[in-house]
């Protein structure tokens, strides 16, 4: 039953969803590289983004202005992260905490439970959708939903903007320096603690943007971030923790693996193919495609 057309379709569908997954992975890896912690509540920031998109589209701007809503939603999630970081994450560096990894894990899982249960309490367990008026498009041989294609384009734009910020601006240089040596950056006069705040905000903002963009595709409900977050972490392990190109390439690779597996093997196991890829990478390159062996600074 192999047909070249089917293969091409699956490939394109994989790239489209993979780029959106990569957005999530970028957020995780970016926070890790600056703040040196894994944020386990990324999915809840995705969820916040999806609810923000829902509220803004349904009660204010309408589905025609989905892109304005997505920018506003991402900005709102950035702001949430920017405000939460000094309360929960900063004590990791200023409170004399010795086991920072453990602290970050406990604090962000607590935050996960809080946000998820708040969402359930406030909105109930219902699935909602902001709706979309975008017409379907043909990507070569593949008919693709308008919302999904729009999310793909917006994710590409966000990744381009993020890369520009990182590679071409003074702030980007400060962020790259801090990611390699926090102490070195401090010695250069960089206020690493306020960079943390910014990096945490940007990282969760990327998750929030993914949530906003995928709101009409995957629905909005209190645990809607779980699947995408899982993919995000799979991508991080495949691409290598702390690597931006790794997150992009692994995101697309994961999307393609899922899409090809669902098309040619069995669609019921779609979420499992990523794990097969993950196991393969772990067996062959334990630090990920672009990961470096951890050096404690």
């Amino acid at each position, binding site marked *: 039953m192999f047909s070249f057309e089917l293969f091409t379709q699956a490939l394109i569908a994989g790239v489209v969803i993979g780029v959106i997954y990569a957005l999530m992975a970028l957020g995780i890896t970016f926070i890790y590289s600056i703040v040196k912690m894994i944020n386990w509540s990324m999915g809840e920031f995705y969820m916040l983004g999806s609810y923000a998109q829902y509220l803004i589209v349904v009660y204010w701007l309408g589905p025609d202005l989905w892109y304005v809503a997505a920018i506003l939603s991402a900005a709102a999630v950035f702001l949430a992260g920017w405000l939460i970081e000094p309360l929960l994450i900063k004590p990791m560096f200023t409170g004399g905490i010795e086991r920072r990894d453990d602290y970050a894990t406990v604090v962000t899982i607590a935050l996960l439970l809080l946000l998820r249960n708040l969402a359930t309490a406030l909105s109930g367990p219902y699935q909602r959708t902001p709706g979309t008026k975008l017409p379907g498009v043909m990507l070569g041989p593949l008919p693709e939903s308008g919302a999904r294609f729009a999310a793909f384009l917006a994710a590409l734009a966000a990744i381009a903007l993020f890369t520009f910020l990182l590679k071409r601006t*003074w702030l980007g*240089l*400060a962020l*790259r*320096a801090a990611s*390699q*040596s926090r*102490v*070195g*950056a*401090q*010695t*250069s*006069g*960089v*206020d*690493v*603690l306020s960079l943390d705040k910014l990096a945490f905000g940007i990282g969760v903002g990327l998750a929030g943007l993914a949530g906003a963009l995928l709101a009409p595709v995957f629905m909005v409900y209190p645990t809607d971030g779980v699947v995408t977050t899982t993919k995000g972490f799979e991508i991080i392990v495949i691409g290598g923790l702390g690597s931006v190109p790794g997150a992009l390439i692994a995101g697309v690779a994961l999307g393609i693996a899922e899409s090809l597996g669902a098309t040619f093997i069995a669609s019921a196991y779609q979420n499992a193919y990523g794990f097969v890829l993950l196991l393969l990478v772990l067996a062959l390159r334990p630090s990920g495609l672009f990961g470096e062996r951890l050096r404690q*600074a």
Partner: protein
Amino acid sequence: MSGAPPILEARKLSKHFGGFLANDCIDLAVEPGEIRGIIGPNGAGKSTLVNLMTGVHQPSSGDVLLAGESLVGRKPHEIARKGLVRSFQVSRIFGNLSVLDNLVAPLLAGVRTREARQEGAAKARRLLELTGLTRLADAPAKTLSGGQRVLLQAAAGFMMPSLTCYLLDEPFAGVNPVIKDQLIALIEEESRARGLTFVIVSHEMAVMRRLCRKITVLIDGRVVAEGSLDEVAARADVVAAYLGKSYAG
């Protein structure tokens, strides 16, 4: 030169780590333009002193002053911006940034006008030449040899726009003679050209004799002697601390 108010001063500076007294009531006064050496056996508290002065640790008691202004309670990046810059024993270069970007990074702390940037770029090029790293300007810093990293780290400190006083912690450790000479030349050149103040922690007595007219000896967290290298080396307690009591004669 004597009589000028000190640029860098420690007053009755102490630091406990639990029950261990790493620095015990240290008084130190470094004059502007001076190249001060700090020596002492391992565990004497030299690195602790550097860490206290640069805000990495907070003192248990006492005060640190830069140009008369107290630095206690300031964060490391604030102290660096005020002009007290340090290097580390273990190099803290940015491995994935290019050699040139490593030099440009300290400009992040300064003014970002066009002229300041151009001036910074010119300074970076001059430092690349002085350290012989011009050829490697665009290479990722992690490809440098150990000695080149030491040079790069030291050079990056000179890029801090506000730099007035440079603390070098064991800059010559594990560095080959060629690079050592380059580093010494760099320090002498910057001292002469800009009148910078240096505090150098090192075990390399030959280098210390060449660079520093005055040396402070730390033993067991206390200042036990101050003077030229020959003066302090003549003291029985200093010899005993370095070589064991039987040599103290």
